[in-house]
Structure formats: C-alpha cells, structure tokens
C-alpha cells in the first residue's frame, strides 16, 4: 500500500453506508495521476464526489497539500465552492444555455471579469476549440464537449483535477485524439489528477498509481508497475484487451529506419518512429497477446525487441491459457501464452527468458 500520511498531494479517507457502502483510503501525489478502477457500483464516483464536496461522507478525512477540506472528527466540511477542484463530469454537465466561451468563463469567478475572456480563450486554444467559442453545447460532438469540460475544469486553476469516465460519452473514432490530449495534460498538470474508469486500457495509458475498488472497498492501491505485477486480482484477469505498461524515456530516433528507441532502466526497446523529443517521458503499452517467449535469443527474426527478463509469476486464465508476468529491469511485461507452450518451455518462477516484442506492437504515448 502507498503511504498517504505525508502532507503533500491528495489524501482521501471516506466511509459511508448510503447510497452504496464505501470504505476507502486513497492518496495521490502532486503531478501524478491516480486511477480509480473498478466495475460500476464499486464506489469510484462516490470517492470523486466526496473530494469535490458535492456529497458528504459519513466519516473520514480529505486533505490536499496539508489543507483540510473534510474532517468528520474536527467537523470540517468545506462546500464545493471553497474547494479548488476541476471536475469533468461523466456526461460533462456543460451549461446548455451558455456558449463554449461562457461555459469556461463561468469557472473563473476568482479572476476579475476583464481578464476572464482572455484566459478562457487561452484554455480553448489549448484544447483546440478556439474557433468554436460561440457554439452552444448542443451544437458540439461528444469529443468537443469533453474538451470544453476539460477547459472549464482547468479554468478554476484547481488544486486537483477530477475526471469521471471522461471517454464514456465519446465515440470510438474521436477517442484516440482525446487520449493523446489527456496524456499531454497528465504530463503538464503539476497537481494531483484523479481519473475514474472501468477500462483498464485507460488505467495503463494514464495512471501513475492505481486504486482498484470492489464493492466499496479498495482491494489494491499501488504504483502502476506494482499493479501490473499482481496476479491475484480477478478484475485484471478478465480484461478484454490484456496488456501491461511502463514508463520510459526517448533515447534516440532512427528516422531512416522509421524507429524510435526508448530506454527504461538499463533496457532498450524499439518502437515506431515518434515525434517526441529526446529525453521525453513516454508511457509504453504492450498487449499481452503480442509478447512471444523464448528461452534463448533467436537470430533471423523480424522482431526488433528481444528483452531479457525473469518470470515473476504464472497464473492460469482458463483451461488452455496462462498469464505470465515477466520482470524486465524495473518494468513488468504481461504475456498471455498457451498453457501447452508454458509447459513445453518448463516455465516457472525465476526462469530466465527473452520476451520478443515486435516494434510495431509497442505503443508509446507521451
């Protein structure tokens, strides 16, 4: 478990019986992203609502950078107006009678009226909506609405950014661009960010730390690396697109070969050419079905990456497939292979092996 006792960042401990039982303790450091992951009804959104102050838990404590927003024992409960939060609601909850610009300005009551329009236009520029400032929410697509909601959330210059299933009201086509934008926001936002999702792909994209919720309880709360290493979490075994993720930095570009080299620990991995600057931090995601295991280095293959590692655990998924966690330096790769293959290689804990990953299967996002 992560230690949330120090003063910096966000600390949340909430307990309630209604509407759904919830007893959770989570924390998130400044500049980091905490993902609250779980099925619907697991209490993710309740935690977000408690942080924002739109609902009052029975017991608990919520503080940010040492400033207490809620403390049931000391009878402190700041109203939402006095908590500096940026909240992106699931359906965005834009003000339907206001234009895009007015929606953003509505969250700038801390600024003198004369400065609001300038600042609001900067934010709209940032979310690529500058030319739509006169539109009303009804005239926008789902993706554009999400951008307005993000701009409005940032407009308050919040101490914490809360996002509730930010992609659920966006169609799949628009999602990819928004993923990149949120990844960029995650990189540049210097304060805690909390994202609620039921999609583990989004956890892998955005989270630095993860809290997995089940039935109102936190069943796991750790860094993404550690969570990716866990094999005892049924929620993760049932993923639709099993994958693992780790952070790396851009080490080199080979434009003529169409490749970018990424470094993590003392390891290197080749990915499709990226526009990121040398030294930039990227989140690397590899699908568990794209990892091939080999006991020895193999020559004469098209595969670029042969990563040397050790088996951390092997967990049966069903009668024929197993999930193999492989430690590669500080990172953990997840591989799904046939049980038969695992038996043929005599895989067990600590078996030294090579994980073969096609560079085209390496998804690196800033």
């Amino acid at each position, binding site marked *: 478990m992560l230690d949330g006792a120090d003063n910096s960042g966000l600390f949340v401990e909430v307990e309630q019986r209604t509407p759904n039982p919830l007893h959770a303790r989570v924390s998130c450091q400044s500049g980091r992203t905490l993902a609250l992951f779980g099925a619907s009804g697991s209490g993710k959104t309740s935690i977000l*609502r408690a942080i*924002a*102050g*739109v609902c009052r838990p029975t017991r608990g404590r919520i503080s940010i950078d040492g400033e207490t927003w809620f403390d049931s024992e000391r009878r402190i409960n700041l*109203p*939402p*107006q006095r908590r500096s*939060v*940026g*909240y992106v*609601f*699931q*359906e965005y*909850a*834009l*003000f*339907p*009678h206001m234009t895009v610009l007015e929606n953003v300005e*509505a*969250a700038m*009551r*801390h600024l003198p009226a004369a400065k609001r329009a300038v600042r609001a236009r900067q934010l709209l520029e940032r979310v690529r909506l500058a030319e739509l400032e006169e539109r*009303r929410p*009804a005239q926008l697509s789902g993706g554009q609405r999400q951008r307005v909601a993000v701009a*409005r959330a940032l*407009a*308050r210059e919040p101490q914490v950014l809360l996002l509730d299933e930010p992609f659920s009201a966006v169609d799949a086509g628009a999602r990819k661009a928004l993923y990149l934008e949120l990844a960029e926001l995650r990189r540049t936002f210097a304060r805690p960010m909390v994202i609620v999702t039921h999609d583990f792909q989004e956890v892998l994209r955005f989270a630095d730390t993860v809290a997995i919720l089940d039935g109102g309880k936190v069943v796991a709360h750790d860094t993404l690396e550690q969570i990716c290493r866990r094999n005892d979490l049924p929620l993760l075994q049932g993923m639709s697109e099993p994958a693992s993720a780790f952070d790396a930095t851009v080490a080199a570009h080979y434009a003529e070969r169409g490749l970018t080299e990424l470094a993590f620990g003392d390891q290197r991995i080749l990915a499709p050419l990226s526009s990121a600057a040398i030294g930039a931090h990227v989140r690397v995601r590899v699908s568990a079905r794209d990892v091939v295991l080999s006991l020895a280095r193999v020559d004469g293959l098209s595969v670029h990456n042969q990563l040397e590692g050790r088996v951390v655990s092997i967990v049966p998924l069903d009668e024929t497939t197993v999930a193999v966690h492989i430690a590669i330096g500080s990172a953990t790769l997840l591989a799904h292979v046939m049980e038969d293959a695992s038996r043929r290689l005599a895989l067990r804990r600590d078996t030294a092996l090579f994980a073969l990953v096609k560079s085209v299967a390496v998804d690196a996002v800033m």
Partner: protein
Amino acid sequence: MDWSALALSFELAAATTLVLFPLGIWLGRLLAFRQFSGKGFVEALVALPLLLPPTVIGFYLLVAFSLQSPLGAFFQSVVGHTLAFSFEGLLLASVLINIPFVVQPMQRAFEGIPQEVREAAACCGMSKGASFLRIELPLAWPGITTGLVLAFAHTIGEFGVVLMVGGSIPGETKTIAIAIYDRVQAFDDQAAGVMAATLLAITVLALGLTNTLARRVGKRHA
C-alpha cells in the same frame, strides 16, 4: 362593453401573477430539489384547487375572511374593511387558486435541470445565489413563463371563486367574467357576446404566445 370590469380583470391578473412569480419559483424549486417528509402531502395541497369545485374553495375562503376568523379580524383591524367583497380578498383568493397553475410547471422545469449541472456550477465556484441566477433561472425559464401566463389567463377567466368571495361590486370585485354573467342574466346577449369574444381572444393570444416563447427558448437550449 364593461371597460371597468375588463380593466379590473387585468389588474387582478397582473397582481396575482406578480405575487405568484417569487412564490411559485420558491415553492416549485423547493418541491423539485428538496426531499422532506410530508412532501407528497404538500404536493397534494398544491394540486387541491384543481380538484375542488370553486364553490367549495369560495366557501372556505369566505369562512376565513369572516370577522370571526383570526385572518378576517386581523385584516379588518389593520385595513379598516373586510377581506370579503374587497379587491384584496379577491387577490388572496386568486393567488390561492392559481398556485397549481404556477407551481407545477415551475417544479417540472426545475426538476428538468440535471443534478450534475447544478453540481458543476458549485464546482465552478458559483455561490448558491449565483448558481440560481445564472444556471437555474435561465434553464427553468420556459417553465416559469408557462406558469405565469397560465396564472394570468386563468385569473382573467375565473368565475366561481370570484363570485363567491367578491360578489359583483363594480370597480372593486366585478371582473369581466362576472360582467358577462350579469349581461346574460339581463338578456343583453350582444354585450355578453362582445365581452366573451374579447376574453376568448385574449386567452388564445396568451397561450399561443407562451408556447411560441417556450419553444424558442427550448430550441436555444436543446
């Protein structure tokens, strides 16, 4: 054409609407957003004037207006004349019987504002007052105008309760609806016909106007 009766009807309708504007918003919003014990009972009370015959309402109002009742006695001691058969009594009666026409559309309008939108206003730092003025009021506006126009038109058309508590004192309590009844009783069909047609035209105009306005505002928000 009894112009003083028509003027009195408009005066009464305007005063009723004016009183019900804040009252309806307060009560409609309360019923829309708050959960409290006895809410169903309050909602039934609000709807009561729709169900009771005007004679029953009028009868109880007369009882309440009489000098034997605390309200009637108080009014007499302060103003110097009785509530019954006065414009003030008529106004009070008119406000009471119009409560459902005003409160119900306003309640529906406030209920139509998603909870998340109101929470978003709070999370944007808006105070309760700012949120009310800048978010709730504009969004509920079509329902608010509907309620007000209904109350206005309904007051102009009200007959039974006015007859019961107001009688038919020219310039004080004789509204256009009562004047038409008077004319019919006096076999003056022509005057009754003119006034009836005027009333019909005003009512159609008022409702048509509300619907158009409500649709226009609705389109802007959709």
